[in-house]
């Protein structure tokens, strides 16, 4: 195997990368592989047969089995797939095995290059309690409140109640191994404590195989601000500024932007420095994210470090001009960062929205259905990261995120206008999505004013959100039904033969009242 020219002389040369993931992030990495002259290998489960990520990679390996533990979480099968295809490096993406130190160790143990931080850094930061201790030692400010690991759900009720009383309400129950909003529950009143604890513990056990949950004070009216860091294996470390990810529903991010609309230059520098210190404290290697809560008075506290590439990494790429996946690969190969902190500046403003198959007018419940039409917006400064295309379906098998729509513009106002236009232009039909809601966020005065706190959705839509009702759309639907305007002939064969199959020779037909 021969790697590309630029890899020559690298301590750990890479020629072919297997991505132990699926969906948009797998596609994202495969595209960088193609541009870098590296081979790429996909793994896929039955539900992903024929998926975009399988198709985007140079080669693909099928992993049989119905459960994630047979497929995307199956370390043995993934290593076998790497051996079979001659892949010499593994990129974990985000989610799945990306933050499992046992996987990092297994990859290295198999003689492959692991594109991620060391097992030690993953463990230290993955356990929220040891992470807090490490941050206190490194002088990084942490959230006030009491730490209480709960290990056995049945014996812990009394202790939980006592700890909750000491920490005070409202509080947050968090799975120690959690993330992405799963295994995390807000408790505003003591009477809901046990019920929410049971739910958090169960979600954590299902999603992470570890039911440990702990109690933390909930800081309301705060902002979620995270700093991207990048370190190489030679001791160089930089930060790539912050992302503001405050707009969330069910503790999952919906809108992210970079830079933050509120951070001043001094706080930005302090946070950046704290993030670099946090990374250095665990000898971090590669791309990582240090999350902070910024309170109203301008103080910031360490929340956690994500030892992987983040979903929202594209906005950092837009404003910094750095391709994070490329740098991850270079760092894993043992190459030095090609820039220092003083080379980095913020260029313009970027926003990302996550398009979910869900119903924002009904508590954001996940929705399923075919992507009967999927026509993304185009134009300057628009990027779409997705793992689906027209004809695919939103199913219950995986996370309901369909795509990440990203815009980049010279300043925040024009970025917001660009994103609103992009949301409106997106023709995504056949499954309920949050596009209309995202568009309304972009049009909301509070968003324009930068009032993006973590309770943004609850504050601005206290009664919930409902879609705009149109008086024209029913006529459009009626005319479509009348003329049989559906592409699939089967869908217009209704009983009684109403509607005629579309006639391709009919070039123009007008209907006047």
């Amino acid at each position, binding site marked *: 195997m021969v790697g590309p020219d630029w890899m020559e002389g690298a301590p750990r040369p890479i020629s072919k990368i297997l991505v132990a993931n699926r969906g948009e992030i797998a596609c994202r990495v495969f595209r960088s592989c193609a541009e870098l002259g590296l081979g790429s290998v996909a793994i896929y489960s039955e539900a992903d047969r024929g998926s975009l990520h399988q198709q985007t990679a140079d080669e693909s390996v099928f992993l049989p089995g119905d459960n994630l533990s047979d497929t995307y979480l199956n370390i043995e099968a993934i290593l076998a797939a790497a051996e079979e295809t001659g892949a010499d490096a593994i990129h974990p993406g985000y989610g799945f095995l990306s933050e499992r130190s046992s996987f990092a160790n297994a990859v290295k143990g198999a003689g492959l290059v692991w594109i991620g931080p060391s097992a030690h850094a993953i463990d230290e930061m993955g356990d929220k309690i040891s992470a807090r201790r490490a941050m206190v030692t490194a002088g990084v400010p942490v959230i006030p409140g009491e730490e209480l690991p709960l290990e056995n759900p049945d014996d812990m009720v009394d202790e939980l109640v006592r700890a909750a009383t000491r920490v005070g309400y409202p509080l947050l129950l968090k799975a120690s191994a959690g993330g992405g909003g*799963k295994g995390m529950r807000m408790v505003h009143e003591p009477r809901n404590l046990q019920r929410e604890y049971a*739910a958090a513990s*169960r*979600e954590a056990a*299902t*999603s992470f195989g570890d039911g440990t949950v702990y109690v933390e004070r909930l800081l309301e009216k705060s902002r979620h601000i995270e700093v991207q860091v990048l370190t190489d294996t030679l001791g160089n470390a930089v930060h790539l500024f912050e992302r503001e990810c405050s707009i969330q529903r*069910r503790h999952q991010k919906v809108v992210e932007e970079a830079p933050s609309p509120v951070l001043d230059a001094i706080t930005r520098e302090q946070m950046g420095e704290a993030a670099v210190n946090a990374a250095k404290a665990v000898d971090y290697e590669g791309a990582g994210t240090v999350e902070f809560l910024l309170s109203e008075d301008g103080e910031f506290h360490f929340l956690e470090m994500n030892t992987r590439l983040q979903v929202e990494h594209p906005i950092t790429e837009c404003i910094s001009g750095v391709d994070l996946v490329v740098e991850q690969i270079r760092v894993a190969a043992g190459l030095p960062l090609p820039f220092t902190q003083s080379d980095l500046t913020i260029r313009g403003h970027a926003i990302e929205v996550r398009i979910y198959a869900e119903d924002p*007018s*009904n508590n954001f*419940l*996940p*929705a*399923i*259905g075919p992507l*009967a*039409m999927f*026509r993304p917006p185009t134009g300057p400064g628009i990027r779409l990261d997705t793992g689906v295309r027209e004809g695919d379906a939103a199913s*219950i098998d*995986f*996370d*309901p995120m369909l795509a990440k729509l990203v815009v980049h513009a010279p300043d925040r106002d024009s970025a917001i206008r660009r994103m609103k236009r992009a*949301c*409106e232009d997106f*023709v*995504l*039909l*056949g499954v309920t999505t949050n*596009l209309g809601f995202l*568009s309304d966020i972009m049009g909301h005065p509070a968003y324009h004013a930068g009032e993006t706190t973590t309770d943004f959705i609850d504050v601005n839509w206290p009664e919930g959100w*409902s*879609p705009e*009702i*149109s*008086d*024209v*759309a*029913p*006529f*459009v*639907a*009626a*005319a*479509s*039904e009348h*003329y049989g*305007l*559906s*592409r*699939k002939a089967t*869908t217009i064969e209704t009983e009684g033969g109403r509607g005629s199959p*579309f006639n*391709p020779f*009919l*070039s*123009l*037909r*007008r*209907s*006047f*009242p």
Partner: protein
Amino acid sequence: MVELRDSSGRHWQITIGTSEATCDDETIANEHIFEIDARPNRLWVDGQLAHVVKVKDDWWVHINGCIHVLSIDEQGAGGSGDEGGMTAPMPGKILEILCNVGDQVETGQTLIVMEAMKMEHRIAANGSGTIAEIHYDIGDQVDSGAALIDITGEE
């Protein structure tokens, strides 16, 4: 005539080529001008481009930057509405059943906890009354729209 229901529950009766239509039995004007070209899934209305696609009995319409869903409604007005039962909002698994047949329950009370897409969802009573029937057991897999519980109301 095409009968449709929009997402706010309004019932429309529209005949293309006539000048009037009804919305919730009220007569309104139908003054729209439609143009269709040789491409499927496209339609011009009053000079605006709309994208349309039909999935089962629903027409999905993208026009003026918004997406709308209109359901073909052959039942006529009053054909749908609350049935007094509660249905699964999505496919998933029953985790917990928090009531028994014969229980008195109140609107908003959590009756069932479901899991779907690795998240838990609470199914709350949509009215006050007595639990008449529970259609599933813990651990059962249910489809979207499956009736879970029947409540006899006290209206």
